[in-house]
């Protein structure tokens, strides 16, 4: 995951293309990252999750995507 985060930080356009062009990569990377970063027991994981979203938002397409991801009503998440 560090690779994806660094890519998003340093080469946001390339990171976006990389994640978009491969149908397997987005699922693998985002899923793995969320498993790691989204552990509610760890503060650092929570913050890392937000940091990835921020890094991913450095292009217009990335920003639009992050906005749409968090704008969807995930009713099951609040159960």
């Amino acid at each position, binding site marked *: 995951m560090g690779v994806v985060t660094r890519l998003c930080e340093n080469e946001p356009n390339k990171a976006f293309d990389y994640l978009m062009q491969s149908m397997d990569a*987005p699922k693998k990377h985002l899923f793995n990252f969320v498993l790691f970063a989204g552990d*509610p027991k760890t503060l650092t994981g929570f913050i890392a999750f937000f940091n990835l*979203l921020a*890094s991913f938002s*450095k292009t217009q397409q990335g920003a639009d995507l992050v906005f749409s991801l968090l704008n969807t*009503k995930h009713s099951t998440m609040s159960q």
Partner: protein
Amino acid sequence: MSTVFFLNMCLTQALVVVFPHRNMSWDNLFAQLRNSENILRQGSEQIQPDDLRIMEAFLNVVQHVAENSAAVRVRMVQHPQWKVINLFFGLICSRVSCVLKGALFNALASFAKTDPGANSIQSASICNDIWLLLESAQVLRTRPYPAGTTVVDSGIQYELHEVESSQQTYPETRAFLNLLDALIVYVLKKNQQK
């Protein structure tokens, strides 16, 4: 299956596993910020340091999303429930760390950004709202205190001299200047168009 839908589905499924009790939506995250603002305004409780760090990280997301998408910027500002500009000024006027205030100013600066292709009327409206709140909140004091009022140790001058100088880091002042820069760019563009 569109890519956005695919990614959306992946993230949703992942979050169901990892965040069983957390609702990672803008609605909920802004509601949490509003709740924190209410707590701070009442003065009954302090925000925990861990919560402050999460708030800073979330504001960093808001900043980047708003900075890089004019459409998202307008949708965030015009959302009837979120009221982000008022919310952010409410937090800025609370007793929170200079780092958090810096994150709030940077997020406001991203809302004030004016892109060449963006809707100029909407950009103007956002910049005017921010400027008016900046004036009325007296973040940078430009009017003398009314007679008979107690002078409060707050505001950006106080924090620059008393807090940031001693720590030798200037997150709030730098972010405030960033906001002024964004607002002044808008004013200059407007004057050039006349």
